[in-house]
């Protein structure tokens, strides 16, 4: 599911990052890459979202967040 659909405070594993020209590499350099564990901290229906990746919090614009596909952990 896209990151934006995740429920808050649930951890999920990143499966793929859709998107062209360097978006994936960019996100990877910030810690968001296939295999990393993320937790949605601040979602809502509009505006950017905030996720927690390991020790850091990153704010991601909605469009980009929508293209990060994750799988909730159990």
């Amino acid at each position, binding site marked *: 599911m896209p990151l934006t659909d995740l429920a808050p405070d649930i951890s999920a594993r990143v499966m793929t*990052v859709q998107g062209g020209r*360097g*978006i*994936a*590499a*960019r*996100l*990877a*350099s*910030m*810690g968001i*890459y*296939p*295999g*990393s564990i993320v937790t949605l*901290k*601040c979602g*809502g229906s*509009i*505006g*950017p979202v*905030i996720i*927690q*990746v*390991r*020790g*850091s*919090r*990153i*704010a*991601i*614009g909605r*469009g*980009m967040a929508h293209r990060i596909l994750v799988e909730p952990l159990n």
Partner: protein
Amino acid sequence: MNDKKVIKEAQCQRTDLTIALAGNPNSGKTTIFNALTGSRQHVGNYPGVTVERKNGSFRHGSYNIYITDLPGTYSLTAYSPEEVVGRNVIIQERPDLVVHVIDASNLERNLYLTTQLVELQIPLLLVFNMSDVARTQGYDINTKLLSQLLRIPIVQTVGHKETGLNALKEAIVKIASGPQQPVPTSVHYGPDIERELEKICNLLEKADMPSFPSTRWFAIKLLENDDVVQEDLGEYVEDLAPILAQAAAARQHLTRELGDEPDVLLADHRYGYISGACQEAVRSTVELRHTVSDQIDLVTTHRVLGIPIFLGMMYLVFKLTFTLSAVPMHWIEMFFDWLGQSISSLWPAGSDSAVQSLLVDGIIGGVGGVLVFIPVIFFLFLAIAILEDSGYMARAAFLMDHIMTKIGLHGKSFIPMLLGFGCTVPAVLATRTLENRRDRLTTMLVLPLISCGARLPIYALFIPAFFPEKLQAPVLWSMYLIGITLSVALAKLLRSTIFRGETMPFLMELPPYRLPTWRGALIHTWTRTWLFIRKAGTVIVAFSALLWLLTSYPEPPPEKLHNLNAEQSVSTELAYSVAGRIGRSLEPVMEQVGFDWKTTTAMIGAFAAKEIFVAQLGIIYAVNDEVNEPLREVLKREFNSLQALCIMLFCLISMPCVATFAAVWRESGSWKWPVFQLIGLTVLAYTITFSVYQIGRFFEIGT
């Protein structure tokens, strides 16, 4: 005796070492840079780009160490000018050592940059900063083991407490000046990728390549489809085409075989390597629990509460700024009054000396009128620096992003706009944080519409003169509001016409909240305040002098001044001067917006710097403008409130000052943009003021 002499000589001769400081944003790199260099630092520019260059130095033992603080980056690709600049410094200047500052509480992500630095094959030292935070978060890092696994020396520090600094200096000196260190282990990218890399390397080796960095580094970059490296290679490789073709083929092959783009694959391997090392050397003892930062964020980024809290913060910032600066402003005013009088007294009373006039009215008047606002600007920038250093600004940008995107701007545009309330020049420079050129240009072009500190003298003069006490604060408030509204509207317009296109997606790390250090905040504040002062010292002095010239010469022949009273003779003298003539010729146009030719003449001066406008008015209306009272009386006589409002409006909207013009020119890279801005804003100012004046006159409001 001989020994002592030798030792003394050795002490006088110092060896120079150069190092570069690299690291993620928010890793505490700058705090360490400040702690090492103290005040011995200098901020400049890298030629050709708008990335800041920070240099500093310190001494340790018998060494002079020169440090360059590289821009904070997450990697060394070609996606942003900061990253390119960072790696160019390393490649072209080959420092003796690269000191990589790492946020120990965020180890794996930070080590990503390390893997790339290792590939540059330059001596490396890792600084595990924020080790206190890492410990409280339950991370137990065996730095000795990790250092062995990575084959890179590690030093631990707590930057803002200055713990571990001495050990750091020792390590820097030892490694930078010492013998060759063991080569750190480089990431192995798996058999498929390594095979492709080898093929590219073989081709590269046949060409005449520089020895540093290694061909492997170039091969990796080519596989990543790095634009900048491709361009650079074109410079020294004659037949680049087959190499590029091989790289392209390799990319295709790998994408097909392994199912992902090479840069993603490479990232994957890098993290795999990092993971492996960390699993051995890092124990996580406590579950990642809610930190204090988390708890604060619950409130500050709350969907409902977030924005009101933000507005509250902004209100606090402005209120504090104006309250704290009142007293210092008074002192500065008194100083300049005293200065003006002392200089005047060097001439006999009633003297007609041109030099006296130039010094007292022109320069002291002009510059004094500006410098009196230093406290306001200083406190505003201090408040902003504290908010930035504490980490709140990132949340503010996050909150503003949604609204800003609706206007057509980026969340990060909000910080330059905030700075614009102090002085437009540092605001223009702050647009550097916007990666997208369209976003950056749009923000730059609308910035002058925000009421900067320079307009305050104008408001301070006109508002009390023409509006009753009850209306004074609302009128001032509305000037600010109009500025903001116009900038928003104009931004929207620009974005839907010339700068059409997608906004950059918002991607920003929210650093944990931190208590700002006084040193950091003050350095931050001072850099920006200094820009304002320097503008005053240079531009305003020069233009005050120039304008004094333009408004005093040529002088009318004495017969014309016969039988005129003081006011009339000043008027005639003005009419004769260059500026006066320009003012008179523009009169028919400017009358339509409520100006008369004298005010128009003063406006010409305002192009240099808005602050000069008031001083010019003082001269033109033949009043000693040290005390605003008489000038206010004169203005009350000459204008009605509608005209006063229009004058203020025109000043608000039009003509960014020369310093802004220069800053926009430099930051946008072309003279076309500041000229476009100048013409556009002047036209806008005229149109709006025209409408207000004519409508006001029609309905007889304020006349």
